[in-house]
């Protein structure tokens, strides 16, 4: 849905500059206490400037004031720039929304905005769906590119797990009746617009805590600076207000404060670009904290469809007879599994599929019987889960054949395959082994997750033996076999009771309770409305493997915050060493020895520190927006790496930066 654009492209920068000025509104600025403090100090100096009363030259003071205002502006600019990236997307979504109209069953046409929950609308070929809802009649292929960016159409039909439709998507064939499930103005599209715009953005818990820390540091440094005049008076001198103000502004954590909200917006934005919608920033943070991933076997760990790979005939039955029966039973089975039985029969056993005879009666698969098959010339051939076949043929009971089948079943399961029993006229023939095909590379991904301290649990409807074999092959840490939605929910609760955060994805209505219970519940966009409501994220691509990347994005957001906070705090050492000697040299000339950077003059030192303090903000904007890269190398090495870059770097960088600026400032005779 988005096209990545350069961070500093002119299209984004110009409106961001205008926004940066607009954000100076005190009512908005107060949300960022550190920048607010900076603005107050800058305002105070601006007002005091014409009054004079100090030995400092007006030119020097003016430069300090300008750089202080720039510090504030750089901060509001960073936020505006981060917001601007989303705003372009919001504009196109809003355009889509404004053209929506709805056709009622009685033929009237009304504006989509007037639809209420429960209304029924008719959507025909080439119409845009006017509101979020559920298909109650018909099947249609729908192009959801407006939301997902994916142009291949998807099928939406009444009943089942593919009934949800989204406002703004286009029906490209057939006609459906949709019952509206959204309140006016609170649909998916509205939520997306708000999200990408950042309008609904609230501070996340971690952001609030960090803001408190920054306020605390500001107060501590305010005390440190406000007491200096008293100290100076003891030493028989006084320090100009502008110099004290400069020290305060450089010491308080302006860098991280200026970038904090940009980091948060960019983090959400990264998810949106990744085609995942998080309903709150809190969910993104929680993703970084996840300890346990519940992954559905099918589609995530194995490719969706199992393939028939072996035939196991019961004693007294030839494999060819079994192959023949299996082929017949699968003739009408359109599922990939059914197709693979035909392929197996042909390729391994030389039994080609025949055309479906006209007099054949098809027994379709139902969730209740879990058996499918065919009735042909008096032959009744059944194919289905082993226990279902045994149950459907009570006569088999404890016969030798049934017992042999059970043993065969176990052998198949141990090999990580799923058995299907085949019976003819109540007599067992044998079993088809369906093999799960594990996706390439998942083993490495799970090893990576393990290094990140995340445990993976495979969720499957398979029996425990099959599940164990697949789990071992795929390299997951644990599995939940024969899982029902209740089991899933219970597992999540159990993990949470142990203090762990759980992430999962799901699409069905029966996944909804688990999605709601999980700390990070990613609903598939193809899923039901109930699932999409229950989860705190929606994956527009409906790709369950993305759960792993979502965790990475959450971690990236937290890491970026931590890295820039550490950098900002570490910067203070150099700033002290720039300003303290410059400030006190009039009181005790000997304190010049603290001028370890050898800065040209006291005024140059103070100005250089304040310039560095301002310029570091735009320099770090790209990092804040792109995020610090997360590497799955374990917490220890990761911390060592980041401490070296942002801790040690934060200590050293300003010494170099201030010195260089000082050379420029003194070279240009700015003071």
């Amino acid at each position, binding site marked *: 849905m988005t096209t990545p654009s350069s961070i500093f492209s002119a299209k984004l920068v110009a409106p961001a500059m205008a926004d940066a000025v607009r954000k100076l509104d005190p009512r908005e600025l107060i949300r960022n206490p550190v920048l607010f403090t900076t603005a107050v100090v800058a305002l105070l100096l601006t007002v005091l400037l014409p009054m004079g009363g100090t030995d400092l030259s007006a030119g020097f003071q003016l430069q300090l004031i300008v750089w202080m205002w720039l510090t504030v502006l750089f901060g509001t600019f960073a936020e505006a720039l981060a917001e601007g990236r989303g705003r372009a997307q919001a504009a196109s979504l809003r355009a889509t929304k404004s053209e929506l109209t709805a056709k009622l069953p009685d033929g009237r046409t009304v504006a989509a905005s007037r639809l209420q929950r429960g209304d029924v609308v008719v959507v025909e070929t080439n119409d845009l769906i006017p509101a979020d809802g559920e298909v109650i009649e018909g099947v249609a292929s729908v192009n959801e590119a407006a939301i997902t960016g994916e142009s291949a159409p998807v099928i939406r039909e009444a009943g089942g797990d593919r009934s949800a439709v989204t406002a703004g998507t286009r029906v490209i064939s057939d006609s459906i009746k949709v019952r509206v499930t959204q309140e006016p103005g609170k649909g998916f599209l509205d939520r997306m617009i708000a999200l990408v715009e950042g309008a609904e953005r609230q501070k996340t818990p971690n952001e609030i805590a960090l803001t408190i820390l920054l306020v605390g540091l500001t107060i501590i440094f305010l005390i440190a600076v406000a007491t200096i005049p008293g100290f100076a008076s003891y030493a028989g001198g006084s320090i100009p207000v502008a110099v004290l103000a400069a020290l305060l502004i450089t010491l308080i954590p302006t860098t991280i404060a200026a970038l904090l909200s940009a980091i948060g917006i960019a983090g959400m934005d990264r998810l949106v670009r990744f085609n995942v919608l998080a309903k709150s920033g809190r969910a993104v943070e929680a993703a970084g904290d996840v300890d346990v991933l519940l992954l559905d076997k099918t589609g995530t760990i194995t490719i969706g469809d199992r393939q028939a790979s072996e035939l196991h005939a019961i004693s007294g039955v030839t494999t060819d007879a079994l192959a023949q029966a299996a082929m017949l039973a699968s003739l009408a089975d359109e599922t990939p599994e059914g197709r693979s039985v035909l392929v197996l029969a042909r390729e391994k056993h030389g039994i080609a599929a025949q055309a479906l005879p006209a007099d054949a009666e098809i027994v379709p698969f139902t969730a209740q019987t879990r058996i499918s098959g065919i009735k042909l010339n008096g032959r009744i051939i059944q194919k289905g889960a082993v226990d279902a076949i045994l149950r459907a043929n009570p006569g088999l009971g404890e016969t030798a054949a049934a017992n042999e089948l059970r043993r065969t079943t176990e052998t198949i399961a141990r090999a990580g395959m799923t058995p299907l029993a085949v019976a003819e006229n109540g007599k067992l023939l044998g079993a088809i082994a369906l093999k799960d095909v594990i996706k390439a590379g998942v083993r490495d991904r799970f090893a990576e997750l393990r290094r990140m*301290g995340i445990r993976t649990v495979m969720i499957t409807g398979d029996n425990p033996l099959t599940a164990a074999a697949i789990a071992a092959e795929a390299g997951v840490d644990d599995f939940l076999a024969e899982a029902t939605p209740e089991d899933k929910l219970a597992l999540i609760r159990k993990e949470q009771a142990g203090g762990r955060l759980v992430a999962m994805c799901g699409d069905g209505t029966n996944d909804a309770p688990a999605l709601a219970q999980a700390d990070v519940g990613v609903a598939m966009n193809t899923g039901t409305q109930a699932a999409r409501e229950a989860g705190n994220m929606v994956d527009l691509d409906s790709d369950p493997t993305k759960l792993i990347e979502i965790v990475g994005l959450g971690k990236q957001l937290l890491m970026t915050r931590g890295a820039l906070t550490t950098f900002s705090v570490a910067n203070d050492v150099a700033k002290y060493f720039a300003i*303290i000697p410059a400030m006190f040299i009039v009181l*005790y000339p000997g304190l010049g020895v603290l001028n370890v950077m050898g800065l040209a003059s006291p005024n140059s030192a103070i100005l250089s520190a304040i310039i560095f303090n301002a310029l570091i903000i735009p320099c770090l904007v790209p990092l804040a927006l792109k995020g610090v890269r997360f590497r799955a190398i374990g917490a220890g090495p990761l911390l060592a790496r980041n401490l070296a870059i942002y801790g040690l770097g934060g200590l050293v960088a300003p010494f170099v930066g201030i010195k260089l600026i000082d050379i420029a400032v003194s070279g240009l005779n700015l003071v």
Partner: protein
Amino acid sequence: MTVQGWVLILLFTAIIIALAKPMGLWLFALYEGRSTPLHAVLGPVERGFYRLAGIDPQAEQSWRTYAVHMLLFQLVTLLFTYAILRLQGVLPMNPRDLPGIGPDGAMNTAISFTTNTNWQWYSGEAAMSNLSQMLGLTIHNFLSAATGIAIAFALFRGFARRQVSGLGNFWADITRVTLYLLLPLCIVYAVFLIASGVPQTFASMVDATTIEGVKQSIVVGPVASQEAIKMLGTNGGGFFNANSAHPFENPTALTNLVQMLSIFSIGVGLTWCFGKAVGNTRQGWAILAAMMILFLAGVGILYWQEAAGTPMMHGLGFAGGNMEGKEVRFGLAASALFAVITTAASCGAVNAMHDSFTALGGMIPLFNIQLGEIVVGGVGAGIYGFLLFALLAVFVAGLMVGRTPEYVGKKIEAKEVKLAVLAIAVLPLCILGFTALSSVLPQGLAGPLNKGPHGFTEILYAYSSATGNNGSAFAGITSGTPYYNALLAISMWIGRFFIIVPVLAIAGSLAAKKYTPETAGSFPTTGPLWIGLLVAIILIVGGLTFLPGLALGPIADHIAMINGQLF
């Protein structure tokens, strides 16, 4: 610097590290409320106290109840001591017929001893009767130490417990700590001191005839009993004005070593106890390692500065180190070591005069106090103060592993950050605020004996010492005035309880949280990286705030000294 000097320093460090686990084990038993070998004898006494006071030691208290009971207890015992000091003149055990203490002085001293500070504006032998010393002051040496340890226990429980509101029982904690730890140790310790020559008597004076044939009256009294708890409980208030420099308080090289060890012993034990309480003793060792790095750095600088001496003294023909204000019998290394220990812990006992150190040498004790006395620190206060910085360090850097910050299984969130910052901000507020005030007001300027940056250091040191609940002084200052008595008393009160209450609130908040199990993705809070990070955060957040003050005080003093100017 000499080899012997460094041998002493390293020997001390080795012994104190070796003491951490045995002391920690004993403390852990008390923390858990488990039985110790002493319970056979003292158990009935403990239960007797509970029955007498109508206390159920099993009754869990929420952080608020714990805090309220603790504060009420402090208030009552404070008023008790205030009354004794005011009424000293009419009370018994006053062999030298000393008059009652004035209101500002009595309040200052009562607060000073209640807050484990032991700031002494007075000279003990000249102002305090034996009753005041033993009942008014020594009682607080025990109770303030026990209170500090109790608060540390409550905080440990906050980390260790899961989804509960109870932090233990304040009365049970102070009773157990006093009965099974402080009293038995002090009895043994006092007997050792008596054997080493420290007086323990109700007599008041002994008359001696000096070599010159002059008769001199020397004050004696119940010194040994006060001395033991003064060190062990990091109180520091001496019987004599000269404190541990006085031969009757600290007669031999061995008592000097034991006194130094006893200042740190409970503090290092608490680091181990913390690790044990949170289920991983390496957590405790990591904290102790960070403390020891800061400690040895301090000792190194101080010893180096004192051994280098001053160019002015060298010019006068006095070669070698700066011996002014030091006992010849202890020498440079033992004096430097003692000074660092007593200020790293919030003890405040001295065996040399900090005011007479070289400028940079004198800066080390000052800086130690300003960091919040978290390098081993006062009993209880050291570890809970240190843990505040640990929370801050976890919060600043912990995000860098891509998870919400956690420390020993508890998530650190807005509430903890708010309270930790509040507690940490108390130090600069009182120290810098009152120093600035006293640098301007005539009442404040009347205090320091010396002029220039040295005089400024004296003021800064006084407020640092009071706020940090240390109690040692840059002795040049005359602080017994109503102005200083009042402001220093306020500093001591704020420095103690405006940290303790947030600490208890943090403990309450942590105890209510779920436990987050450690994984490969958790922020590692053991190992060299964490230790280095702790040291850096302590120096940057805790230390840098004081750089302007230090620049105008000891650093300016030092530079002036190099340039041949003294104050």
